[in-house]
């Protein structure tokens, strides 16, 4: 592959990133190839030393933050035509509520996930409280001298403590699951915006 082909493939692969970003990277790689050729390598050898262009593209895509891609995506490609602005203003009562609703739905789904997590932890907390109050009332009835009540309170307390331990691991797993899901969703969004790797 010669330098021109390499740079062209790189440019194609980085489509979707901000233009200045792409230009800066291309200049960087172009300089790297030129410097190698100055050392006596042939053009093809110099390009080969830089590495596989597809690998370079996928590494760059991973490095670029999501916010940068989103910013580039919502930036209009060509100057906005007047009639588009007029249409946007006239259509405002229509598209604005839809947009708000869409955002609200996504937010709501996310909140629902976290509510489940919070309620799981609440159950965990109540088991702890149950264990604590069970033991406390056992001590109280011991002072009062009611042997049967002491035993039953102690039993309830220990049961709660046991359940709390199980609950703790369940809560931990569920929390980790939701965090993992959030990360996956962010990566999915990134792919949706810049498209899957183009071979």
């Amino acid at each position, binding site marked *: 592959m010669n330098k021109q082909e390499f740079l062209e493939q790189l440019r194609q692969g980085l489509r979707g990133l901000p233009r200045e970003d792409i230009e800066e990277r291309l*200049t*960087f790689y172009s*300089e*790297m190839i030129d*410097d190698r050729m100055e050392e006596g390598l042939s053009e093809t050898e110099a390009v080969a030393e830089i*590495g596989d262009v597809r690998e370079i593209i996928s*590494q760059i895509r991973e*490095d670029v933050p999501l916010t940068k891609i989103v910013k580039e995506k919502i930036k209009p490609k060509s100057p906005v035509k007047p009639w588009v602005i007029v249409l946007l203003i006239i259509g405002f009562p229509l598209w604005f509520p839809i947009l708000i609703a869409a955002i609200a739905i996504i937010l709501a789904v996310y909140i629902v996930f976290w509510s489940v997590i919070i309620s799981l932890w609440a159950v965990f907390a109540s088991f702890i409280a149950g264990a604590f109050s069970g033991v406390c009332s056992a001590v109280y009835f011991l002072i009062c001298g009611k042997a049967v009540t002491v035993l039953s309170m102690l039993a309830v307390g220990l049961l709660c403590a046991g359940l709390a331990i199980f609950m703790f691991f369940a809560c931990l797993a569920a929390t980790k699951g939701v965090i993992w899901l959030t990360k996956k969703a962010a990566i999915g969004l990134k792919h949706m915006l810049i498209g899957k790797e183009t071979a």
Partner: protein
Amino acid sequence: MDIQLKRGLLDVCVLAAIKDKDSYGYRIIKDMKPYLSLSESTLYTILKRLETAGMLTVHSVEHDGRLRKYYHITDSGLRRIEEFKEDWKEILSIYRFVVKEEDNE
């Protein structure tokens, strides 16, 4: 190696490569080669990060009818190297402690 640790190491390595005189991309890679191999895209990310952090500045110089970017270390970059040296004195003493514990086992 731990990714956070490696990132910090690479930053300081690149700063060290431009410490004595300004350098350019390919020479930085060549100078570092005996110690660690660095891909172009990794170097680009590091240079960008250091530039944003104000630890180096970039200027273009004409060379052989084309432009070449030179990287110049700033005071804050030099301070980073000094900090690194201090940190590693501490890390080395911890390392000696860890190794000694293992030898005694």
